[in-house]
């Protein structure tokens, strides 16, 4: 186990370094970042001053070294728009995104896992077909459209919920439903197939044959075994919530990391873009690492193969 943990840690560190390089490369790939990121109506003199101040007149390799050295210390420079430490701005927005992602995950666990188990146990009945239709629709309906339709129904027509912003619990309802929809559909389908796999095992037959009640067979013997693939895949998918948050937060004016990223891109505030994108990538990598380590701990075969 120790060797496995060390190997995965080393691999993740390498991925983080390469990802930071990729972020630097992406921003430089579009040509002159000054012309790209500055507003159109700026004077030539200001462009030069700006370029000098941000160190764009230095050789590329020097700039890369400076970016990496700064990034590893958590220093991405100052946001051009807010005139403040870029990473500080990112960290300020983090709790809002965590709250949103957390409630989306909670919602998923409460709705999707029971739905998946139910549709597997009642296979090929009306319940199963209805559940399948719901999950297929959940995967096909784009989150931002679902968001608009919910706003129209619950905020414009019924006036039950606010259209956007953050504050009371009612502000949290629509964004977390929208963020959870796609994720919940995936998890429900996964839970169904994982549960079906386990239900075919011999030990389930044994449990039933020895006269255990259906509640115990499902609750104890089945769920415990189907939990491993569900937890793993749900963990891997949870990272995509960070991507989904970019869109959901923009629709509902939720003051989180995703909306900050979109605004930074629209404002051409590239130190902030670099900070936000790098930060998201690092969190995502750590999440994947955590899932892998949990999996290795749950299932010894994984760490031996690695």
């Amino acid at each position, binding site marked *: 186990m120790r060797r496995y943990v060390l190997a995965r840690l080393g*691999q993740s560190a*390498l*991925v*983080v370094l*390469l*990802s930071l390089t*990729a972020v630097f490369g*992406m*921003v430089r*790939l*579009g040509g002159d970042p000054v012309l*790209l990121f500055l507003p159109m109506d700026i004077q030539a003199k200001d462009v030069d001053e700006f370029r000098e101040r941000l160190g764009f007149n230095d050789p590329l390799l020097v700039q890369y070294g400076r970016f990496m050295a700064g990034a590893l210390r958590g220093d991405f420079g100052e946001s051009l728009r807010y005139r403040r430490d870029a990473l500080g701005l990112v960290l300020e927005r983090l709790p809002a995104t965590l709250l949103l992602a957390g409630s989306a995950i909670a919602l998923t666990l409460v709705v999707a896992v029971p739905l998946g188990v139910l549709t597997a146990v009642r296979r090929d009945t009306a319940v199963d077909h209805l559940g399948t239709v719901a999950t*297929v*629709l959940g*995967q*096909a*309906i*784009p*989150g*931002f*459209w679902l968001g*608009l*339709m919910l*706003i*129209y129904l619950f905020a*414009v027509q019924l006036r039950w919920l606010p259209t956007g912003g953050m504050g009371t619990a009612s502000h949290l309802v629509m964004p977390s439903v929208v963020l959870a929809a796609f994720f919940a559909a995936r998890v429900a389908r996964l839970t169904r197939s994982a549960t079906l796999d386990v239900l075919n095992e011999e030990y389930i037959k044994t449990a039933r044959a020895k006269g255990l009640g259906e509640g115990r067979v499902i609750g104890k013997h089945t769920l415990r075994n189907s939990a491993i693939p569900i937890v793993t895949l749900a963990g891997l998918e949870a*990272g*995509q919530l*960070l*991507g*989904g948050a*970019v*869109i959901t937060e*923009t629709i509902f004016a939720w003051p989180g990391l995703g909306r900050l*990223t*979109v605004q930074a*891109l*629209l404002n051409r505030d590239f130190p902030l*873009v670099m900070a936000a*994108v790098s930060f*998201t*990538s690092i969190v*995502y*990598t750590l999440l*994947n690492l955590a899932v892998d380590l949990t999996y290795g701990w749950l299932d010894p075969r994984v760490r031996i193969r690695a």
Partner: protein
Amino acid sequence: MKKYLGLALTLVTVVTAVAAPWLTPHDPLRADFVASLEPPGTPGHLLGTDQLGRDLLARVLHGARLALFIGVCTVLVTAVVGGLLGLVAGFIERWPSAVLMRLADVQLSFPFILLALTINAIVGLGLRNIILSLSAAGWVVYARVVRGEVLSVKQRDFVHAAAALGVGRGRLLFRHVLPNVAPSIIVVASLQFSQFIVAEAAISFLGFGIQPPTPAWGSMLSESRDFLFVAWWLAAFPGLALALTALGVNLLGDWLRDTLDPKLRV
């Protein structure tokens, strides 16, 4: 059921996309300020009109054209680039394989939509650049799947036999290995297709990608936000078209996976 519904929905979208100009007498770009924000069912405007009096049905139909074009182009680019890289990496192993896998790790350390969005914001707006951005963010899935498949296919007896008979490496790769990997490429392509279409719409919705007045579903939805209180149809129909297209392609992809390659999980 899956198969027929998926085929039917996809067929409708394809026909719509190809025949858009002949299905409606209206020009999707022509404004008519006298007839702005007419509700659905107005004579001559089945789905109503938008804030500039443009016919919504015409815009939704032309949107299908754009969405499918972007989807097809992106899938082709990613399948060819990712597929070739995966083939080479799986076949040669050693350093091409190591380089490819590290590249894949890096790509997979960004959520797909964030990567595509950031690349798009940097390379710029427009049709060519959105295809480029989606391809740059999406090729890695093919490369990984194909590499894995090649690693197992090249161990099979018929490949060893062909090699023993003196078949050259290029021929071995393209005539003997590739046909056996092709079903996986097709399945991944069908599953990626709807992801690309929805991602394009999301990126255009956020203000990048395809810009108004071009009738793309995403930018139409973005514009509709300002009129949500007075004109629900502007938000409802482009999104419905997008959802039905994604649904059709998803069902078709599921069915293809079940038929061609039941083991594959993407």
